[in-house]
């Protein structure tokens, strides 16, 4: 399967194999990692993982949009979006096998 999608359970399998911990502990580890990244983003707005990349929140200001179906102009409320900047290492890795 060349284009297999990696999921939480694959990450748990890896941890199970390489660390001496129970299956339930691997589930907790993966979940706490994701949850802590989310919490830090909400609190501080950025999370930097060396040799992986940086997640940061961008603030978008209010703007006028158009409903494509009706053509009516509507105000789009200010919101935050999350962007990810990959590290050089990650950028290089995805270009190794072209």
């Amino acid at each position: 399967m060349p284009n297999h999608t990696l999921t939480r359970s694959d990450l748990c399998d890896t941890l199970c194999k390489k660390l001496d911990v129970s299956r339930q502990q691997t589930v907790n580890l993966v979940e706490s990692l994701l949850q802590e990244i989310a919490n830090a983003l909400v609190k501080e707005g950025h999370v930097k993982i060396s040799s992986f990349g940086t997640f940061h929140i961008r603030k978008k200001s209010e703007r006028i949009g158009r409903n494509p179906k009706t053509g009516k102009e509507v105000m789009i409320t200010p919101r935050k979006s999350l962007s990810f900047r990959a590290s050089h290492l990650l950028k290089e890795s995805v270009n190794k096998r072209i």
Partner: protein
Amino acid sequence: MTRSELVQKINKLNPGITSQQAEEAVTLIFERIVETLAKGGRVELRGFGVFTVRRREARTGRNPRTGDSVKVKGKNVPFFKAGKLLRDQINAR
């Protein structure tokens, strides 16, 4: 937050494991994601987001300073799209 702060948090939240195991777990998780993307695969973490690789085709660019046209090679770029739950958490309040 940095990687080492993340390790500390995870260590606190998982009393059954040592700080070394927490450190290794973080390394293993990100390594596994990088490996998958390197193979052209995708990583789907429901509620959090999806990591994929997007293709940028070769194009003729321009040196903005001199105006010379230059060939830019095609490349792959890592891409992350936040999941709905994470987007909602960020936009709460």
